[in-house]
Structure formats: C-alpha cells, structure tokens
C-alpha cells in the first residue's frame, strides 16, 4: 500500500482538469513565505514534503495545493518552536475581529 503522496500508477479515472487556476494573493504569499523561510534556513523542501506526506488520505486528497502547504508550514513552525497552534488560533480570531 503506497503512502498517500506516492501516486505513480495509483488507479485514477479522473480526467485531467485543464482549467486555468488564478492564484489568489494569499496563495502567492504562502508560496513566497516558503521561499523566505527556506532562505533563512528555517526549513527545507524535504521537511515540507514530509509534513505534507503525514496528512491522512482524506485530507491529502481534499485539500488544495496551497492549503496543503499551509497545513505543512504550521507543522514545521510549531516543530521549530517558532509559534504554537494556540497562538495561530488566537491570531486568526484577532484578525477576524479586525485588530
């Protein structure tokens, strides 16, 4: 049984979706943040891959590309002790309130 991300030859009848995907600004910034953290030596590509690979199958298959990156980035930042999930929750709530 291959891991969730190991997709070569995984049975799949879905047609390839050719539609254009306009990148949203938050996705552009997640993409950039990944590069910034990498340049600062706070993460590398394999750490990000490993964090994404640790998602359960249903989550891996349903999350969009940058949603997976966001999820993985949280794992890495928490691992590094740079922030906690509670802090992120609090910040989300604060931003929601407009503060």
């Amino acid at each position, binding site marked *: 049984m291959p891991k969730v991300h190991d997709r070569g030859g995984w049975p799949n009848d879905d047609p*390839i979706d050719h539609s254009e995907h306009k990148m949203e600004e938050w996705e552009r910034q997640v993409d950039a943040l990944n590069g910034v953290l990498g340049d600062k030596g706070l993460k590398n590509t394999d750490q990000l891959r490993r964090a994404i690979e640790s998602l359960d199958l249903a989550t891996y298959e349903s999350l969009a590309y940058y949603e997976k990156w966001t999820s993985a980035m949280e794992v890495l930042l928490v691992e590094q002790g740079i922030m906690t999930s509670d802090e992120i929750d609090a910040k989300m709530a604060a931003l929601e309130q407009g503060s």
Partner: protein
Amino acid sequence: MADHGHENGHSHGENSEYYSKRAQAMQALLIEKGVCTLDDILTMADKIDSRSPEDGAKILAHAWVDPDYKKRLLANAEAAFLELGYDLPETSPKITVLENTDDVHNMAVCTLCSCFPRAIIGRPPAWYKELSYRSKVVVDPRGVLQEFGTVLDEATQVRVIDSSADYRYLILPNRPAGTENMTEEELAKLITQESMIGVGLALSPEAVSAS
C-alpha cells in the same frame, strides 16, 4: 486502494477561507516575532513571479536556431542558461534539458509531489500538481497525450521522466516543420508551457497565424 470519491483537491470554498486565514495568521505572527518582514515576502513573491514560460521559450528558441548552443544546453543546462543571462539561485534544484525529436518524445512529471523547473519557467500549471496527471502519466503516457490532444507518430518512443530527486527536467520540444525562415522571436511564440513539459508539441506556424 482506498475508495476516494471526488478527489481533485480543488476545495476552494469553506476550506479555502479557513486556510487562507490560517496562513495570514501565521504570516502576521512571523512578522510580529521578527522572523521575517512583509517586504521579504513580497520581494520573494515578485522574484518568483519574474519567471514564466516565456523565459523557457526564449532559451529553447535560441537552441533551435544555434546548434552549438543546443549542444551546450543539453550538456550543461545551467551554464547555457547563464550565457543568456539566467543565473539560477544557489538554492535552486538542478535543471537539465531533454530533447524531443521525431523519434523520441520525453514527458516530465513529479509523481510524489510537484517538482518542476520553476527557476527557469515559473510555477507549474494546476493540472501538473493534481493526482490525475501524477498517477496516469507514468502508467499510460500515450493516453495522457491523447487527453491533451497530442498526436505522435506511431513509431515514436515515449520516455516519461519522474523528477523524484534533485533534478528538474525541461523539455526542448521538437522544432516543427516549415519554420526555417522564422526569427528567434517568432519561434519562441511556438514554444508553449505544455510543450516544455512534454504533454504537447510546439505550435505549428499555421496554428499561431490562425489565432
């Protein structure tokens, strides 16, 4: 295999709002904690945006018109990129170029994630990162070519490259017939993102003038 209903991963909707807010919260915290600045992020985003398929097309069109350059490109892509002013960052994965001909058709994929020659042609298209392409192209490349409307000569060998490690693959498409008198700039317009991945061929001059 697990039964996985509709699995395209395009969950823009309730999920997407949550993740965009979470990403923004993480970013705000990183800035607050002095790990990076907003300027760092926006500068990086612009840097990433600065590479697009047009850059690849420019390089590959040059290889079409200059056989010696083509040799150098196939032998050492990064040195050849530098000749045309493309200096890859230190941290960029290695890039190598594969040539498509009448006899050999190469196609690139990353079955494990989404590895792509970003440093030279920008971000991959959405379909390249999706499960359907990643699973199908290794086992049925000719079926995938058909899905993209690409027709090869029956005798052409198909080679699929799974970029699983430190190398990223850029395809030099087969130069179409009837292009002998075109300028390098005109030739670059024939080289599409799809042809640089290998799911498509370079456009024919007729196709371009018809549009």
